[in-house]
C-alpha cells in the first residue's frame, strides 16, 4: 500500500518507497511509503510495534533498510548513510544519552563531528530554553526521564538539520519542555526543514503537524491531513484505524 503525506507539489525532503526492515524472522516494517516535505511536520502514529521507531531509525541512518528506497534530502540512505546522518537530527525513542557524559560534552561531540563553528551560543540558548542550563555540566546518568527526553530533542535540533526526526519527544516531558519542543518544531519548519514526529500523544502531534501517517503491524494504513485526527471525531477515526 502506498501512503503519501502532504502535497506533491512541495519540495520533498524524505522519500520512502516500499521500505522493508527485517530482524531475523521478524518483519518490523513491511513495505511502507512515506513522503515528507520541506516546511511541514508529519506525525507517525500507531500502536506499539507498528514500526514507527524502526522507520525513524532507518531515516536517521542507524538501521539499514532490508529492501526499498529511502531518500533523505536527495541522498540514498543505503549508499551514503554518512551524508544522511549529516542532514538529519535524530532524537531516539529510548535513552539516547551517554550516561557518564554531560550535556555540554554531548553537544561538543556533535559540534565537532558536524563541523560546527561558534556553536557555544546556540548550545547555551537551547539548553536554557529547555531549562537544562543548570544541568549542562552534570553527567546525564543522574537525569530524570523528562530531562533526558528534553536533552535528546536539543541534540537533534542543535545543528539545524534539514530533516528533524523526533521519536517520542513528548514522552514524560513537563509542559515547559513540551512548549520548548513545539517551538523547536516550529523553528525547523520555518527554516524549511521537514519534521517527522513519532508519538502516542495524538493531541500534541496534531498541534505540531500538518500531515499524519498511521502505521499498523509494520504497514501504513492511512495518510491524511492532521486536521482529520483532531478532537473527538479525530480520536474515533484514529481508534478505528488502529484495529
Amino acid at each position: 500500500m502506498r501512503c503519501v503525506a502532504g502535497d506533491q507539489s512541495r519540495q520533498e525532503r524524505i522519500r520512502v518507497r516500499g521500505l522493508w526492515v527485517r530482524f531475523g524472522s521478524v518483519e518490523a516494517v513491511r513495505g511502507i511509503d512515506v513522503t515528507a516535505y520541506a516546511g511541514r511536520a508529519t506525525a507517525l502514529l500507531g500502536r506499539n510495534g507498528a514500526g514507527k521507531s524502526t522507520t525513524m531509525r532507518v531515516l536517521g541512518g542507524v538501521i539499514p533498510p532490508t529492501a526499498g528506497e529511502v531518500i533523505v534530502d536527495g541522498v540514498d540512505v543505503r549508499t551514503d548513510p554518512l551524508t544522511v546522518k549529516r542532514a538529519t537530527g535524530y532524537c531516539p525513542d529510548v535513552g539516547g544519552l551517554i550516561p557518564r557524559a554531560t550535556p555540554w560534552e554531548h553537544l561538543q561531540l556533535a559540534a565537532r563531528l558536524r563541523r560546527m563553528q561558534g556553536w557555544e551560543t546556540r548550545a547555551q540558548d537551547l539548553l536554557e530554553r529547555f531549562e537544562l542550563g543548570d544541568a549542562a555540566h552534570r553527567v546525564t546518568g543522574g537525569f530524570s526521564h523528562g530531562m533526558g527526553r528534553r536533552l535528546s530533542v536539543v541534540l537533534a535540533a542543535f545543528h539545524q538539520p534539514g530533516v528533524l526526526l523526533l521519536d517520542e519527544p513528548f514522552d514524560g516531558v513537563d509542559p515547559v519542555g513540551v512548549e520548548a519542543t513545539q517551538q523547536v518544531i516550529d523553528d525547523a519548519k520555518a527554516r524549511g526543514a521537514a519534521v517527522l514526529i513519532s508519538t502516542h500523544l495524538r493531541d500534541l502531534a496534531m498541534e505540531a503537524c500538518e500531515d499524519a501517517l498511521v502505521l499498523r503491524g509494520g504497514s501504513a494504513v492511512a495518510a491524511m491531513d492532521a486536521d482529520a485526527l483532531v478532537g473527538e471525531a479525530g480520536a474515533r477515526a484514529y481508534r478505528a484505524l488502529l484495529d
Partner: protein
Amino acid sequence: MPTEHSWTELRRGLADLRALLAFRASGLGRRTRRRLSIAAGIVAVLTIAAVVAPAYLREPLDGRRSSTFVAILPSLYLGFLVLATLAAIASGGGREVVPREQAVAYPVSSVTEHLGALLLAPLNIAWLIQAWTIIALTTYVLGPRALPAVALPLLLWIAFATAFGQAVGWAFEGIRRGSQGLLVARLISAAAMSVVVTLVLSDELVPALDRSPTVRVYLAAAYATGHQWGAWAASLAGLVVLLVVAVLVGLVPARWALHRALREELRLESGRIEPRSNPGSDLRAMMRIDRASIWRSVPLRRGLIVLAFMPGLVALAGSLEWSMVTILPGLVASGGALLFGVNTWCLDGRGALWRDSLPVSAGIAYYAKVIVLFEVLLAAAGFTILLAALRAGTPTSAELGSAIAAAVVVGAQVVATSMRWSVERPYAMDMRSARATPAPPVVMAGYSARLALKTTITGLVFSGTALADGWVFPALVALPLLCWSCVRLVRTADRWAVPELRARVVAVVAT
C-alpha cells in the same frame, strides 16, 4: 509482623533466588544452554581431576617437594580467604543475579541478593584456579588414601572462605556508602596495605604466615589419611559450623549495605564537571567520551585501581623475579578487559543509538574504543610492573624487554579478543553500580577462563625470552604476535563496518 532476620525471610529469599535463576535461564537459547552444560561438565571433571590426579602422582614422582608444599599449604588456604574477600570488596559486596535495572520492579530482598552473590562467586576463573590449586597440592601431599574424606574439609574451607569474604565485602560496601565512607574505606585499605608492607620489610611475613590457624584445615584433611576419624569428624563439624555462621552472619552487613544510598555514584552524578576545550579531531572527540565513560564509572575506576595495585603488591610481597614478572601483565589485562572491554559498547549504554546517528565513520568509532581500551590496560599493566620492579632487582635487558613486550602483546591480544566478543555478543548492561558486570555472570566466567589461558601462555613465553642474551629476542617474539593481534583487530573492524551488524549491536546495547 516484621520478618527480617527470620527463617521465614531466609526461606523466602531462597525461593526468590530460585525464581531469579529461572528468569535468567529462560533467556538462554538452546545453543547457550548446551555450551553451559559443557562448561559445567568441564568444571566438574577438572575438580575431580584436581582431587584425584595429584594424589596418584605422588608415588611416581616420589613425593617430590611434598615437604615444601606442606609448609606453604596453610598460607595458600589463607590466601584463598584473602582472595575471596578482596573479590567481594572489589565487586561492591558481590555480583547481581539480575541487573538492578531489570530487577527494580520486583521485591528482591537483601537475603536473595546475599545468597545470589554467594552462588555467583565461584563463576570466576581466579576463584576456580585457586580452589583447584589448594585441592590438588593437598591431595598430592597426602596421597590417594581416603580421597573423598580428604577433599571434604578442603571443599568446606573453600565454601567458608567464600562466605566469609562475602560478609566482609558487604561490610566494606556498607562502610563505603556512609557519609564519610570513601575516606574511611581508603583509610582501611591504606592501613591494611601498611601492615602488609611492614611485615614484608621487617621479614616478618613468612613467620606470620607460618602461624596461620589454617594449618587446622590441613590437619583435618590429614586425619582422614591417618584414619583418625574422630578428629576428622570434629574438624569437619567445626568447618560446617563456621560455614553456616558465615553465611548467616553475612545477611546482616548485606542488609545494612544494600539499604544505604549509593553515595559515591550519586556524588559523581550530581557533581559539576568542568568543560574542556574543543577536541582537535574526530578521533580525539570520540576517545574523550569513552575515557569519560570509564573514569566516571565507579565500578570501572575502582576495578582498575585494584587491578593496578593488587598483582603488583603481591609481586612486591613475594619478591617476584623478573622472569616471572612477565606473567603479571596478562593477569592485569585480562582483569581490565573483564571490567568492560568484553562488551565495550556498554560504555555508551543507551546513548549508543544517538552516538551511532552522528556523522562519523564506523572505523573512527571502532578505533576510538580500541585505543582507549589498550591505553587503560597498558597503563594498569605498566603500573603493576613498576611495583614489581621495586623488589625484583636490576633487570637484564632481556628481562626488561620481555616484561615490556609481554605487557604490549597481552594488551593487544586482550583488546583484539575483547573487540571481537563486543561485536559478536553485545549485552545491554548499565555499568553504574559497583556490582554490575559487562555481561551475564555465566558468560563472564567463560570469558575469564579463555582470557586467563591465553594471557598466561603468552606470559610464560616471555618468561622464556627473559633468559635470552638481550632485548632483541623478546622483541622478535613479540612482533609476529602483535601483527596477528592487529590482523584480528582489522578483521573485527571490517565486521563492525557492516551496517546490519552494527545496527544489531547498537540496538542491543541501547535497549
